[in-house]
């Protein structure tokens, strides 16, 4: 077989180029995403080395699916699937309309608030986008929000999980860079909040400046009895939030365990509302299996690709690329941002983190920058990667639970303003490191 090992002669530069070209080409042909990255990985495993390297891929698949950090993803999706099948979400958003309906865009702003609360309950993304996609999106559309605005709010808000502490991105970074995870969390708090505020600012700007973006405020007075009925809709969701956050911050459960507490809370709520049934649980569990299958298989390919690329000599290639670019530290940092941005177009965050952290961290420390600050900057860059096309995980997660009439293209178009806001946040972190290092 002359193909086996033949690619190696092209060298790592051309090889990297071919790898990305192939990714892009296969991405747009309609091959299931999970298999795009897996296929490119297979081609390079065989073409660069030979059949004996293919077990590297299955080894990484095995390690990926059996890693503890993803356990909270099915928990959040299960929570979402149960909520979706009960009347809880609808009652919650009706109550939110009662509270925030008097300001333009009030419900969307509250959705960002809900997203921040969810982000404080989880360290990873996937589950929250699905949750908001199942719950907030239909309700916002029903209340008359502009489709694109609503989609953007859900994807951008749902991605905050790794920016607002706790965050698995920051934990992995802390382990890689040997810096305090506590300091990383503290440093990420204000930038995460700032990002959420940028989203709120954008929503309000759209609400007041672009007619039709949000529904008209509720003007007619609501009778007291009706108010009471609606406010009851808030009671159970708030109770669940208290259970989850209480179990984390009260030292009762670890972050992952707390996501299971959330599921139990939501299940209990449906039982209290008399909505619980075997078929509800069955349907929710099946939907969860399908959704996590989709979510996890997207990451599987990226993780495998990184393994093969590193074996090809990727680490050395990328670090020489970076150190060779300039002697000015800030140029190197900006170049790293550019690399993260480009990788964000092709890879899942796990792949990006696995690939770049080991390369960037020693360089950043050498340059004399604070590794804690860079960790927050890294997490902010991952926010961009969740949304940026053509490989935007948050968009994919949302797509997996929305009706077919919302196309991936429309989702990505909806995300553009939010990506701009994220890039603005990245720029602010670089210009004013004090945002993280107060």
């Amino acid at each position, binding site marked *: 077989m002359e193909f086996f090992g033949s690619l190696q002669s092209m060298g790592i530069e051309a090889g990297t180029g071919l790898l990305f070209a192939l990714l892009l080409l296969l991405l747009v042909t309609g091959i299931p995403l999970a298999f795009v990255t897996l296929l490119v990985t297979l081609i390079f495993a065989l073409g660069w080395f030979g059949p004996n390297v293919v077990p590297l891929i299955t080894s990484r698949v095995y390690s990926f699916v059996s890693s503890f950090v993803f356990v909270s993803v099915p928990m959040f999706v299960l929570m979402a699937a149960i909520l979706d099948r009960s009347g809880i979400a609808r009652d919650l958003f009706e109550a939110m309309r009662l509270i925030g309906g008097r300001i333009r865009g009030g419900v969307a702003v509250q959705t960002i608030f809900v997203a921040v609360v969810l982000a404080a309950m989880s360290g990873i993304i996937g589950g929250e986008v699905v949750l908001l996609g199942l719950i907030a999106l239909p309700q916002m559309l029903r209340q008359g929000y502009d489709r694109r605005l609503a989609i953007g709010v859900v994807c951008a808000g749902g991605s905050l999980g790794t920016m607002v502490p706790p965050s698995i991105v920051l934990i992995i970074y802390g382990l890689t860079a*040997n810096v305090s995870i506590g300091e990383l969390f503290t440093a990420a708090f204000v930038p995460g909040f700032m990002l959420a505020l940028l989203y709120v600012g954008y929503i309000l700007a759209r609400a007041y400046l672009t007619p039709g973006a949000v529904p008209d405020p509720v003007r007619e007075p609501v009778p007291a009895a009706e108010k009471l009925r609606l406010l009851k809709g808030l009671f159970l969701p708030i109770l669940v939030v208290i259970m989850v956050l209480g179990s984390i911050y009260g*030292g*009762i459960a670890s972050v992952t365990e707390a996501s299971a507490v959330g599921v139990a809370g939501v299940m209990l709520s449906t039982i209290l509302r008399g909505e619980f049934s075997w078929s509800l649980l069955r349907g929710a569990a099946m939907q969860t299996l399908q959704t996590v299958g989709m979510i996890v298989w997207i990451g599987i390919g990226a993780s495998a690709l990184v*393994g093969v690329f590193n074996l090809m000599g990727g680490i050395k290639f990328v670090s020489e690329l970076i150190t060779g670019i300039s002697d000015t530290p800030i140029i190197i940092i900006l170049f790293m941002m550019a690399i993260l941005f480009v990788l964000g177009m092709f890879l899942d965050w796990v792949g990006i983190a*696995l690939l770049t952290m080991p390369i960037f961290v020693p360089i950043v420390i050498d340059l004399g920058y604070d590794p804690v600050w860079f960790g927050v900057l890294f997490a902010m860059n991952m926010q961009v990667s969740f949304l940026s096309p053509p490989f935007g995980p948050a968009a994919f997660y949302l797509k997996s639970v929305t009706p077919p009439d919302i196309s991936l293209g429309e989702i990505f178009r909806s995300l553009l303003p939010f990506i701009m806001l994220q890039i603005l946040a990245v720029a602010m972190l670089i210009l004013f490191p004090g945002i993280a290092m107060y």
Partner: protein
Amino acid sequence: ADYEFKFQSSDPAGNPNFELQKTWAADVAEKSEGRIAIDLLPVESIVAHNETQDAIATGILDGHITDLSYFAGKDPAFGLMGNPVGAWSDPQQMLDFVDNGGGAELLNEIENPYGLQFIGATTPGLEAFVSAKPLEGVADLQGLKMRAPEGLVQSVFAAAGASPVNLPGSEVFTSLDKKVIDAADYSVFSTNQAQGLNDVAQHPVYPGFHSLPLVEISMNKTKWDDLPEDLQAVLTQSVKDFAQRQIAALAEADEKAVAEAKEGGEITVHDWSADERAKFRTIAQGEWEKVAAQSPNAQKVYDTLTAYLTEKGLVSQ
């Protein structure tokens, strides 16, 4: 270079251990006058930390620098050899056992069939114990909710009366911070300090009493056998030198971190008495026997280990 090898470390890129391991790679190049070039890769860059053995055997990787106990699932012997909890109170004892007590020969007897050649051992040193509660001895371990990931460490602490919780490394910080657990088996003092663990659990026990991991440097057996003898000797010697360099460097880092921690005033460093350490070791030895019963190789490790310890007067039996 005549020989180019890819080695994967079990440490992340920014970890001081990894920085030290790079000096080993450089030293090999120097000692072999450029005939061997080692490309050292950080943890997870090719395969996961507990998958390197397979990757080396199948020729994907050429070698690894890793904690032997990661392979306890393949054979309990690796767990007992990698971290015989309570056996060592000084890194030099462990290295002497490997070099002169039959450890290296035994390891090759066990690893060769797996397709690996053991070159030599090193260690980051005696790990420090992370705790939020003041611990002065074995009695204080009673009911202590603590993280312990590995088999033997877990059983020994359970036997000592603690409640081991099997948490992954990524959840240790948050769980300590929120008091889900009170204590953790994690790493050496300087690493614990750098990652902020001592800030959230302010009663570390240093020097530790529970864990001194054997970090092995080993490589694909066929590729080892293909090396000329002089280069094999270079590799063996380079690992010996590296072990001394690493132990010295990390001991220094530990002392510096301990001094800083004490100066900060918030952290209380506890040191167990010789009596308490001996009590813990006795409990641990009971658990070694249980591991020994799990496989013929583990029994061999147990026999060789106890013979060495008895000969050196480190255990009274």
